[in-house]
């Protein structure tokens, strides 16, 4: 399940053990445990205030846990100060030193490690090449675009050959197009250098696109840690299900590990309610729509290119979003009666109150 295949020989294992952190009355981390395999890229995903940034800052040494440990390789770094942890970090805010050129920024960490200028220049050239910015090496932060600045910041973090790479929402200040580009670039670079990486984001698309595993956090806890596909198709809780991707909530009847909805009986996933009324969590692409049925009425159709989203209202009032290839809904009009059928074999059914 854990993808450690590509070039992941130099990475170290990183363990977060039962981390707890309170800020006044707010619990930011409530016993977070997480192990990153060597060379793995784990994304921590969650709404703001879920503790993901606190977790990253504790790994970086920029914040201290009330209890718990951070272990990198065989070394317990919990009490090691930030400047001795040997970690590369890229921040959400632009963090290049404004009085230095891109190259000087990248060389800064190497200078502090006492490398001579020839070696520094060679290494800076190498990592700037890696992020595709050799031509910009003499520019100051103020002369570069946001995307370029974050690339230099990435190069600067990698220049010191850190044991762990920490990315704190490095893309959220950028516009959508640059964000997608740089996202893939970060992944490419990370696979190339094989550094164990912790990536914090609130953007599920980002997390699902580049991480080996994604940890969904809520209220200081890890709700689920899994590969992106697993997280999407087999969410462990209603929170994960609704946070990752679009999710329909369809009332249903549960009995003996099976739920009945839309005229179909399916197996319930672990973590579902055991009996009685429940709400089945159904992905838009897990439902098929067909003209001429009698399950629901079409209330809205949005054309999104190769596929369309049809909103259909069930007889008892629940609205359902169905994602389907555009060709199949060409003849549908608002107000049409349609038939709906379930394509899933198993579903998560949560309690009605969730």
């Amino acid at each position, binding site marked *: 399940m854990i993808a450690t295949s590509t070039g992941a020989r130099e990475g170290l294992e990183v363990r977060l053990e039962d981390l707890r952190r309170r800020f006044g009355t707010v619990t930011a981390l409530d016993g977070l445990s997480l192990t990153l395999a060597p060379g793995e890229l784990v994304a921590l995903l969650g709404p703001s205030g879920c503790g993901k940034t606190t977790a990253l800052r504790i790994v*970086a*040494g*920029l914040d201290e846990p009330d209890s718990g440990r951070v272990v990198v390789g065989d070394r317990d770094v919990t009490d090691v*100060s*930030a*400047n*001795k*942890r*040997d*970690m*590369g*970090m890229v*921040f959400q*805010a*632009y*963090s290049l*030193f*404004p*009085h230095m050129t891109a190259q000087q920024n990248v060389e*800064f*960490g190497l200078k*502090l*490690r006492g490398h001579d200028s020839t070696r520094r220049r060679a290494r800076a050239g190498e990592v700037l090449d890696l992020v595709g910015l050799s031509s910009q090496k003499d520019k*100051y932060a*103020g002369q570069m675009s946001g995307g370029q600045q974050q690339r230099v*910041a990435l190069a*600067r*973090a990698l220049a*010191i050959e850190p044991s762990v790479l*920490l990315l704190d929402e490095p893309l959220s200040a950028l516009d959508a197009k640059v964000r997608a580009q740089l996202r893939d670039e970060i992944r490419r670079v990370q696979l190339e250098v094989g550094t164990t990486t912790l990536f914090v984001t609130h953007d599920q698309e980002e997390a699902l696109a580049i991480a080996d595993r994604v940890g969904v956090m809520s209220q200081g806890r890890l709700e689920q840690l899994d590969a992106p596909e697993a997280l999407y198709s087999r969410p462990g809780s209603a929170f994960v299900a609704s946070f990752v991707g679009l999710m329909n909530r369809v009332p249903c009847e549960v009995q003996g590990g099976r739920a009945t909805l839309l005229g179909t009986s399916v197996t319930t996933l672990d973590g579902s309610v055991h009996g009685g009324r429940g709400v089945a969590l159904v992905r838009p692409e897990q439902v098929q729509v067909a003209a001429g049925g009698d399950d629901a009425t079409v209330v809205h159709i949005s054309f999104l290119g190769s596929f369309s989203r049809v909103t259909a209202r069930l007889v008892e009032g629940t609205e359902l979003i169905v994602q389907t290839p555009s060709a199949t809904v060409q003849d549908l009009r608002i107000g049409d009666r349609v038939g709906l059928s379930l394509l899933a074999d198993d579903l998560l059914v949560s309690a009605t109150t969730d």
Partner: protein
Amino acid sequence: MTTARVRAHRRLQAFRVVVLTVLGLFFLVPLGSMAAYSVRVPAGGRTLDFWRQLGQDPDLRGAIVTSLELSLLTVVLMLVLLVPTMVWVRLRVPGMSRIVEFLCLLPLTIPAIVLVVGLKGVYAWVTYFLGDSSLTLTFAYVVLVLPYAYRSIDAGLASIDVVTLSEAARGLGAGWFTVITRIIVPNIGAALLSAAFISVALVLGEFTLASLLSYTNLQVVINLLGKSDSQTSVAASLASLVFAFVLLILLSLVGRRRGARRTAPALDLMAPPVAKEG
């Protein structure tokens, strides 16, 4: 529409010229008069004797050296005290920033004469430990320049993201000393320079504290000299005024050039404090 705008623009231009002229006269006429007085010979004619006197009068020369030394010491002590403290407050105890600001601005609200009453007692100990050199005035002067230096440095720190920059530097292996000297200071250079310049200007013009605490500095000697040799004393006053003016003009030029080269806000003393982002 366009004519109205042209007219408005012209009116503004005229207003500017008037204001600048009036203000210019306000400052230049007294300076001009001082200059004229300092070269006048009562019997008629002009002489530079009084200006030459500036370098020759041993008391005056000593006082000039003392005041320059005082300026330098004040600037150094002020920077050493203020920069790490203010950076520390921003990074670690932002809740304290109000209190620190209040403390730093306090000297502005206390008349020098009241300060002296408090300082007298303190200086009994200063003299006991450090002797009675006029250079011990440095401590009082650091307090005196705090409000101005604080404002200037605060504007400088507000124009950069101190927290992120220092966290980035620490992540790369920098200790606190390196963070302050190699990351923070180079980026608030203009602010430090303006804090330094204004401190120098203030120290060179300071009379009350020195006189009431019975120390000798430039202004005290000028004042004494005024009683025996008024023309030399006016020459000395003028020289120190012009020196301070030049410093302040340099300051505003430095602030402007910085502002132009980077997109950081100009570190102008007259500018309102910049609100910190985020």
